[in-house]
């Protein structure tokens, strides 16, 4: 006991803890301490990171010039946003012009078909950075939701029956580590063979990307759901037996709620994987989205390309982070297990 106390004193002398200890006086000071923890410390860390990046990047000479520092990247962020606004303005102007032409045609007594031609004319512009973000988000969410709709029921069934678990386990284990890039050619060929329609509801490229995301999102959700379902406390199962609950009631009222924390763990993993997979798939297949943006800039090779790629990298990271936080919020709202460490 004595030695333990002495040891603590020896190790506690770093300035940071001393500062915190000084501040821990009353409630207000505690809040200040919390503020320091949750705000100032991360901001300081980001500041140090930016400084190191700025200092380090200057020394890296590439074929496209010096590796851009934070300032250059910020400049390009503003430029990209400006390009997006300019494009949007062009689009609005285009539609206004068409509207005006239609009005004029109506006044001139032209037939309705002619007027409709003007009104239905679509603006064909270049996809801006912001558009690409939107496309990527839509694709990843579609693929992820489709995967979840398939994976959760499979996970429940596999988790409830030992036989089915034995049957599915090898399949899951083999497909789980498959890289998205291996799926991509297969999906592309299958989609172009199977999805033939005069008036397609979705773009083929969208389907390709979304399905690749689905294929990679399935496994973590299946595995975690199955583990959650098979781990339902034996006592709770006994309660359901004593109450003579039907299979459906048992599943809905006991098995499913009980495995909700594990299902969410699977969904969070899946969405994280899905987002990474999507960027790779878009790059490789030239499907619209952030991945294509990165690839285009890489091919472009202008003096701004490196900075623009870095903007995309940061955007990808930030969006991935926000998606994860979103899932975490859902988990906090829906999961009964508040004691679980949510990080």
């Amino acid at each position, binding site marked *: 006991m004595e030695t333990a106390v002495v040891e603590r004193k020896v190790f506690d002398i770093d300035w940071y803890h001393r500062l915190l200890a000084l501040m821990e006086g009353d409630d207000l000071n505690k809040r200040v301490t919390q503020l320091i923890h949750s705000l100032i410390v991360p901001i300081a860390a980001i500041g140090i990171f930016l400084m190191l990046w700025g200092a380090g990047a200057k020394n890296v000479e590439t074929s496209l010039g010096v590796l851009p520092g934070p300032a250059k990247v910020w400049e390009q962020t503003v430029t990209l946003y400006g390009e997006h606004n300019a494009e949007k303005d062009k689009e609005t102007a285009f539609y206004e012009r068409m509207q005006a032409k239609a009005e004029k045609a109506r006044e001139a007594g032209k037939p309705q078909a002619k007027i409709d031609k003007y009104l239905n004319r679509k603006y064909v512009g270049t996809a801006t950075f912001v558009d690409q973000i939107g496309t990527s988000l839509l694709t990843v969410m579609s693929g992820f939701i489709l995967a979840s709709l398939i994976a959760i029921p499979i996970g429940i069934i596999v988790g409830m029956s030992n036989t089915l678990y034995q049957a599915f386990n090898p399949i899951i284990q083999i497909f789980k580590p498959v890289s998205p890039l291996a799926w991509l050619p297969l999906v592309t060929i299958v989609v172009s063979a199977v999805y033939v329609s005069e008036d397609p509801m979705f773009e083929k490229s969208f389907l390709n990307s979304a399905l690749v995301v689905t294929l990679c999102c399935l496994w973590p959700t299946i595995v975690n759901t199955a583990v959650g379902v098979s781990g339902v406390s034996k006592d709770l199962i*006994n309660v359901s*037996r004593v109450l003579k609950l039907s299979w459906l009631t048992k599943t809905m009222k006991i098995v499913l*709620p009980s495995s909700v924390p594990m299902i969410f763990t699977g969904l969070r993993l899946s969405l994280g994987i899905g987002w990474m997979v999507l960027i790779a798939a878009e790059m490789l297949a030239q499907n619209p989205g952030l991945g294509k943006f990165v690839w285009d800039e890489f091919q472009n090779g202008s003096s701004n390309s490196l900075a623009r790629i870095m903007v995309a990298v940061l955007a990808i990271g930030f969006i991935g982070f926000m998606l994860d936080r979103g899932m975490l919020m859902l988990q906090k709202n829906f999961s009964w297990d508040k004691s679980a460490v949510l990080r």
Partner: protein
Amino acid sequence: MNSYLKIDHVGITFPTDNGPLEVLKSVNLDIEQGEFVSLIGHSGCGKSTVLNIVAGLLQASTGGVILEEKEVDEPGPDRAVIFQNHSLMPWLSVYDNVRLAVDQVFKRSKSKAERDEWTRHNLELVHMSHALDRKPDEISGGMKQRVGIARALAMEPKVLLMDEPFGALDSLTRTHMQDSLMEIQTELNNTVIMITHDVDEAVLLSDRIVMMTNGPSATVGEILEIDLPRPRDRLALAENPQYNHYRAEVVRFLHERHEQPARVDVKPEETVTEEPLQKVKVAAKPESLRLVS
């Protein structure tokens, strides 16, 4: 012959890696309606197995259980079980935990309003009306067990089966719970089988104490009638010679029937000469060993 609940020559054998293991052998017990029976015995003697067979959660290998002239072969709400670790759904509130059982058992026979009324009534009975909306994680161990009892009572079971219901509680909470249980028992006069490790608890609550021999092949050793007037008061009973006699009887049984002792006292002056072939494992903490020249 026509007792309310008849446990008739029940035996159970489990397959293990070392061949079949007979856990229970020919357990016989007749229980009358409204009777409170305790099962007491050493750990691992198969008390819980008896209870699970009555509950229908396990199937007897030989013999069977007959409740009101009908054989028990599956679990059902007419034999409600109170588990040691309360087994409440952590995602449901106190009210919803009981309501789940009420809805299931009285699906057809009670209206929605009646089921709500009945849920609240049973929670009132265990003094939990103040915490209807709390989650199990937000209440104490004793309170959880009260909710577990309310859930079991709400099923209006023919037999209430309690598997060491207060085993996981601290002794103060346990005494409160025992008093509550006696109070409820006075009111409802349920038929109860309770498993316990606690001699005082068994004598205080029971009409009869069934003492089980040690396993494997455990069976009923002795049955002790507890002829103490009700309502019983633990403080008054502490001085009661009859109570102390019953207590002593149970303790004596448990001590004598201790056929597989968990602890061996080896005295150095004793030389073990009889039965030289018997193997004995002796363990000693290193700090309690002392070398003497």
